[in-house]
């Protein structure tokens, strides 16, 4: 098993530098690793966000190549792929969290509705209020549960008065399915909660500012299966009101929560499509290898 993984990776590495983009093949013909043209339909009918020819560079390193995809309104789209494939990088482009990395450069076009989010006229503060984020490791602020949720609305000046804030905090916790568990201890530190509760607190914090899109970067990787199940249930409920992009290492999770799935490999978007199709009938050899557990 392990030798096979090594061979596959070696083969991929050997072909990495070859320029093979000029030779688009129809999806039925794809059999080898050379081809890195995205397979599958990248567009949707009602896109919330659109990425076109996105390239990301870390200094000299070309980390993401020519990624184009649509994120549909009120859908859950899962980004999967082996470690280092760039799925988190693409995710972090969507709310410009990559701006915090000095050597990181993003080229291409990403639109939220009609707004080019890398345009000078778009303020990153406004963007991040519209595109919320939940991180891999639960990272509540070392403040009270109440303050954690109230933080976003407070800095954006979204509410007037304490009563309105109380209501918003409770509503957000309710929607994150956390209210019952923490109702009587809103003033205790957020860090005193269990890992799963902390992550739901982070989700409550993100939805308190009522974003349009929520980005989730492996939100369950630090959680046990029970907490994971709760989060997945929550994602399913949140889909009614929000567009959700989730990066996950667990293919079962991707299969359970998402409607569409994008498979990334070494900086390329290899395949994108309906989740059912990706997991039952992958069109690209790399995707098939990955989901059948041959590497990654």
């Amino acid at each position, binding site marked *: 098993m392990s030798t096979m993984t090594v061979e596959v990776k070696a083969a991929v590495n050997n072909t990495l530098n070859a320029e093979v983009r000029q030779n688009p093949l129809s999806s039925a013909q794809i059999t080898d690793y050379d081809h890195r043209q995205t397979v599958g339909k990248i567009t949707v009918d009602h896109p919330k966000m659109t990425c076109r020819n996105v390239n990301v560079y870390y200094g000299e390193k070309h980390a993401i190549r020519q990624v184009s995809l649509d994120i549909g309104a009120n859908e859950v789209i899962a980004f999967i792929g082996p470690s280092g494939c760039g799925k988190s990088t693409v995710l972090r482009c969507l709310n410009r969290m990559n701006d915090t990395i000095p050597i990181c450069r993003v080229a291409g076009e990403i639109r939220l509705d009609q707004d080019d989010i890398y345009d000078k006229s778009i303020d990153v*503060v406004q963007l991040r209020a519209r595109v*919320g984020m939940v991180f891999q490791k639960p990272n509540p602020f070392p403040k009270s549960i109440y303050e954690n949720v109230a*933080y976003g609305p407070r800095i954006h000046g979204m509410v007037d008065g304490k009563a309105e804030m109380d209501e918003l905090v409770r509503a957000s916790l309710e929607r994150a399915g956390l209210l019952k568990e923490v109702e009587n201890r809103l003033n205790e530190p957020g860090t005193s909660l269990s890992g799963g509760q902390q992550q739901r607190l982070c989700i409550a914090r993100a939805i308190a500012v009522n974003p349009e899109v929520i980005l989730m970067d492996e939100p369950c990787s630090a959680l046990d299966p029970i907490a994971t199940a709760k989060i997945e249930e929550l994602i399913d409920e949140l889909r009614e009101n929000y567009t959700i992009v989730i990066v996950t290492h667990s293919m079962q999770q991707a299969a359970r929560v998402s409607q569409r799935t994008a498979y990334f490999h070494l900086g390329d978007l290899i395949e994108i499509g309906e989740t059912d199709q990706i997991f039952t009938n992958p069109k690209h050899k790399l995707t098939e290898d990955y989901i059948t557990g041959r590497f990654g």
Partner: protein
Amino acid sequence: MNKSTPPAPTRDIKVIVNAGLQRRHAAERRFRAYGLLAVTLGLAFVVLMFANIIGKGYPAFWQTYIELPVTFDPAVIDPEGHRDPKALENADYAVLVRASLRKLFPQVEGRRDLRELYQLVSSNAPFRLRSEVLNNPALIGAEQPIWVLASANVDTFVKGNIDRTLDESLRPLKDQEIVWIDQLQASGQINQRFNTILFSNGDSREPEQAGIRGALMGSFYTLLVTFLLTFPIGVATAVYLEEFAPKNRWTDIIEVNINNLAAVPSIVFGLLGLAVFINFFGLPRSAPLVGGLVLSLMTLPVIIIAGRAALTSVPPSIREAALGMGASKLQMVGHHVLPLAMPGMLTGSIIGMARALGESAPLLMIGMVAFIVDIPKGLMDPATVLPVQIYLWADLPERAFVERTSAAIMVLLAFMIVMNGLAIILRKRFERRW
């Protein structure tokens, strides 16, 4: 057996390892022994130092007093009889002190012997009488025993630090003075009390009247200036350099220079202060304001370095959480990063301040080394600081100043221990809550 198989090495390995094992363990034991020895030696010297300082310094916390049977003669104090406060203030109380000493020892005659007799009490005894009279004018005409400060030599003798078996010419007290002191002790007219003068007086030429109040207030004002300048500037600098400044060659140069500044000999900062603050800006010499400015220059790098270290230790997840919520960079720093870094910054600041408290060299350069009797009342008054006061007293030959030097060192060390203790408590109390 197949020839090509390499010889099984297992048994050999065991033997080889065992052979070297003893040597390895011995090396480890030796290293531990060195460490233990070094720690023991260090502790022994610390104990020795403290024993020496405390042994020398603790008598300074006690002070000898002599009871004088004072007759408050109206003819001396208030010859006019008006009880005019001005007249009472200007009366010659030294006459009364001398008269009461003569009354104690009527057998003493002759100018020289009398002069020695008068030197039993401190030169501030007349002031003591004056304040008694001003507080209670009804005393005039009465006879009242009053405890006055003994002179430094008497004090030293009573504390057992003058050897009476020495030849008369080798000790500061004459034989007959010792006889008088013995007499006073026998009649219970000499006693020792807690030395409040040490904490309430400024410097003085007379050791029994010298105190550290002036130096303490000088240190307080100097450190106040230092803290008010360094803490906000240091924190802001650390935040700017760590969170906002672009990472390029210029900021690298600045960083290297800040690190180097922390290692510049402190007297250089004193020279800088003399040249810039006093000569160029014309600020007064010996002023706590200038002292504070100079110590600020010295302390700033320490606080900046500690502040940056505290900022880097805040986990990136907190920053991402804040940025992800749409906080601006300043909001991220102000709401989340700075509160978490604050204990570390405070610790660094307190340690920097403790260093500033113990600094004397740069202050010598800006004239805070003067003999100043008055207790400074503000930032512009001439002042000195505790370490400089220690330095000044250490230069003086009187035994009474030796013990005051040690007492001042004890006070300084107490402040140092309190400040460092505070830093440790802060660190423990707020350590990593995430």
